[in-house]
């Protein structure tokens, strides 16, 4: 099948428009008849069918506005059908207005024009109907049934075992199991196919309409398990399908490492292929089992710790075996390196259970901002960076709401209308930026817009009005901004459906604090507003720079590191009240002697014989004196149990060689160094 395939849609569009006209006029009739007979189910069904038909066709033809509008209308009608709401006069007029709106939408689509303005008003009315939740307002079209339509990345040839036990009734649904087996042949080379009878039986007992066969195949294929699985798309709900990768290839492993699917290990001793090694991964699809499972985070925690222990044991075995000679030594070495690879793989997988890139929630904001901007008639571009920053799943989930509030605020209050922007000499298109990164032992997420900034006077005025502060009192900027987080505080001139109700910001603050995080605001009137969310790192994985101080190893989060240098003696100064400073690109930054902070005997006290790592903490630069750099590594932050909360230490980690290293919390170090 060729990759791209186009057909001339102009004729189809023509008949679509004609059909819409028919539907529209009959819909009007149905609604008015329903006014007379609100309980007539048939009328309601007919109305639903019309809306549904327009929706389906508009979706196929790419008329997204019609699609999303009819989708919402359909939702209302569905609730009506299910008896969740009743047919009132008010509803009838909203429905009639909706029909008018569809009419206008179709007209616009015919002329290739954008959606008419009144659509939003009608949509608002539809959305305001009882039970219509806000989540309905963004309609996401799923990519049809082809979740496996994405191109499969090329993988090395591997050996797959496919066990297929069709349900007995499969033939009665017009599905020929042999057809599926032939399909498999297109995906690879079956080196063995063993058919099985489900049970031995007498000839007269056999019902020719039932399927008694099952198959056990070994398939040499370059395809991933998912692609092979897709062959069974229509039968997997009722049949037993088990696909196992017997000989994995590196790249194929990558392809499956992030999957949510249940992974089970099942060996069928009786049918095991002679050349087959134990199953590595098995994708077991059976019946209506859920494809994800919920696991107590404690269990994962225990697993993380156990894997850490495993890693240590493996390193010890490795060291013990290094001096051995003889025939078996080579074999042992091979096995150990296999063990090492597997242990590492297990560690990675276990970690990945909990960690998700924060980008997972960012993507949904693209749609949010786009839709809101369109609704507000503003031009807004959303820039996303740092989406790979990994965060604990539960933290990510709880971030969605606060971030949504902030983005809505940015679009609604922050960014000006294109006209206002033009007048103040800004480009018409406003920019909202979300960024995520690690800093100072925290995960930081910023939401920034280049809009009108926060109006100090307005906040002050409002705060006085609400009795939050006394009139005439002078208040520093950050305290003024802090007022925004007060419950019920909103400076929006009028309440819109997206923001301005004053329920957002205090919720944001509360959510963040509940997670042990914080939120802060920076703003300049007419220039920008930036919200900074800081989340605790205790659950995160970081890239760390491993440094040595005396006999101890420490991890400095790599995101805070600017550079490392061996200073010249003349670059060091002692300044009154500031202590030791070091020249960093023409500026003097404080020098922090890590050995002093932690009370360790260093290998070297003279900075010009040791190394200084320049770090940025809360926007300020410091030089950390260390003995030696040992390399970079991704490390998992482990809780320190009862030792948690020591200033300057964000946590601990176990390095690949089994040694424990402490993770430095920059902000804490600075605090400690001041005390030293």
């Amino acid at each position, binding site marked *: 099948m060729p990759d791209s395939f186009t057909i001339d849609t102009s004729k189809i569009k023509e008949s679509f428009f004609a059909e819409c006209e028919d539907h529209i006029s009959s819909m009007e009739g149905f609604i008015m008849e329903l006014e007379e007979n609100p309980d007539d189910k048939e009328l309601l069904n007919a109305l639903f069918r019309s809306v549904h038909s327009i929706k389906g066709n508009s979706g196929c033809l790419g008329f997204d506005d019609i699609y999303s509008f009819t989708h919402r209308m359909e939702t209302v009608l569905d609730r009506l059908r299910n008896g969740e709401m009743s047919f009132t006069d008010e509803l009838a007029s909203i429905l009639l207005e909706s029909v008018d709106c569809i009419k206008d939408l179709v007209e616009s689509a015919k002329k290739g024009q954008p959606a008419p303005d009144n659509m939003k008003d009608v949509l608002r009315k539809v959305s305001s109907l009882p039970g219509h939740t806000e989540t309905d307002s963004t309609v996401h079209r799923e990519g049809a*049934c082809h979740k496996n339509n994405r191109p499969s990345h090329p993988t090395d040839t591997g050996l797959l075992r496919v066990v297929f036990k069709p349900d007995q009734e499969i033939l009665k649904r017009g599905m020929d199991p042999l057809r599926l087996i032939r399909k498999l042949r297109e995906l690879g080379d079956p080196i063995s196919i063993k058919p099985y009878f489900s049970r031995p039986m007498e000839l007269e007992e056999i019902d020719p309409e039932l399927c008694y066969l099952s198959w056990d195949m070994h398939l040499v294929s370059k395809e991933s398990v998912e692609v092979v699985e897709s062959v069974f798309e229509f039968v997997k709900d009722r049949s037993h399908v088990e696909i196992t990768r017997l000989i994995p290839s590196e790249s194929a492993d990558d392809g499956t490492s992030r999957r949510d699917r249940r992974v089970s290990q099942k060996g069928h001793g009786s049918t095991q292929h002679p050349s087959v090694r134990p199953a590595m991964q098995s994708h077991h699809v059976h019946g209506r089992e859920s494809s994800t499972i919920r696991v107590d985070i404690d269990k994962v925690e225990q697993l993380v710790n156990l894997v850490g222990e495993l890693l240590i044991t493996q390193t010890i075995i490795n060291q013990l075996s290094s001096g051995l000679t003889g025939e078996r030594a080579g074999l042992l070495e091979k096995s150990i390196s296999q063990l090492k690879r597997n242990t590492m793989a297990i560690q990675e997988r276990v970690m990945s259970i909990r960690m998700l890139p924060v980008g997972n929630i960012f993507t949904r904001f693209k749609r949010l901002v786009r839709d809101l901007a369109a609704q507000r008639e503003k031009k807004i571009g959303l820039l996303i960076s740092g989406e790979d920053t990994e965060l604990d799943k539960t933290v990510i989930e709880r971030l969605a709401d606060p971030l949504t509030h902030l983005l809505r605020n940015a679009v609604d209050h922050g960014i000006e209308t294109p006209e206002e922007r033009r007048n103040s000499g800004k480009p018409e298109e406003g920019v909202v930026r979300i960024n995520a990164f690690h800093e100072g032992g925290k995960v930081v997420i910023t939401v920034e817009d280049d809009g009108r900034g926060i109006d100090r006077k307005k906040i002050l005025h409002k705060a006085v009005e609400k009795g939050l502060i006394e009139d005439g009192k002078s208040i520093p900027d950050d305290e003024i901004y802090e007022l925004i987080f007060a419950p019920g505080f909103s400076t929006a001139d009028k309440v819109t459906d997206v923001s301005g109700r004053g329920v957002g910001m205090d919720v944001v603050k509360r959510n963040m604090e509940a997670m042990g995080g914080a939120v802060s605001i920076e703003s300049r009137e007419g220039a920008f507003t930036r919200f900074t969310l800081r989340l605790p790192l205790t659950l995160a994985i970081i890239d760390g720079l491993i440094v040595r101080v005396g006999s101890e190893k420490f991890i400095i989060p790599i995101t805070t590191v600017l550079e490392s240098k061996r200073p010249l003696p003349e670059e060091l100064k002692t300044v009154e009240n500031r202590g030791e400073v070091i020249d960093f690109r023409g500026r003097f930054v404080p020098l922090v002697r890590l050995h002093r902070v932690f009370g360790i005997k260093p290998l070297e006290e003279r900075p010009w014989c040791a190394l200084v790592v320049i770090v940025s903490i809360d926007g300020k630069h410091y030089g950390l004196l260390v003995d030696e750099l040992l390399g970079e590594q991704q490390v998992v932050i482990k809780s320190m149990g009862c030792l948690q909360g020591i200033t300057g230490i964000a946590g601990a980690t176990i390095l690949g060689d089994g040694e424990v290293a402490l993770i430095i919390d920059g902000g804490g170090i600075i605090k400690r160094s001041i005390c030293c």
Partner: protein
Amino acid sequence: MAKTILIVDDAQTMRQMVGFTLKSRGYSVVEACDGKEALEKLKNGLNPDMIITDLNMPEMDGISFIKAVRGLTGKRYIPILMLTTESMEEKKREGQAAGATGWIVKPFTPEQLLKVVDMVMP
């Protein structure tokens, strides 16, 4: 000989869209406006290699149509694909229980349609 596919949908647009796509691949196409008409055609000797049916139709809806075909001597094993919408996970199950072979989720692209047809075409 070209394989024949029966398309059952009350929406002309959908019939055309599906029909165009299938014809471009050399399939021969027969259309019916609802389950009732399709069933008549089958009873009167039409013997397609596959049926593609919508679910929401006046006269006879897709589910009843699928059930009826599965009870029709000589036509009981024709693969039937149903056209559903993404919000109708339940319908998918209902259709399968009624005897549908597979499904295509609306909206779909011509490639997706052809891929699914290829998957179940005998």
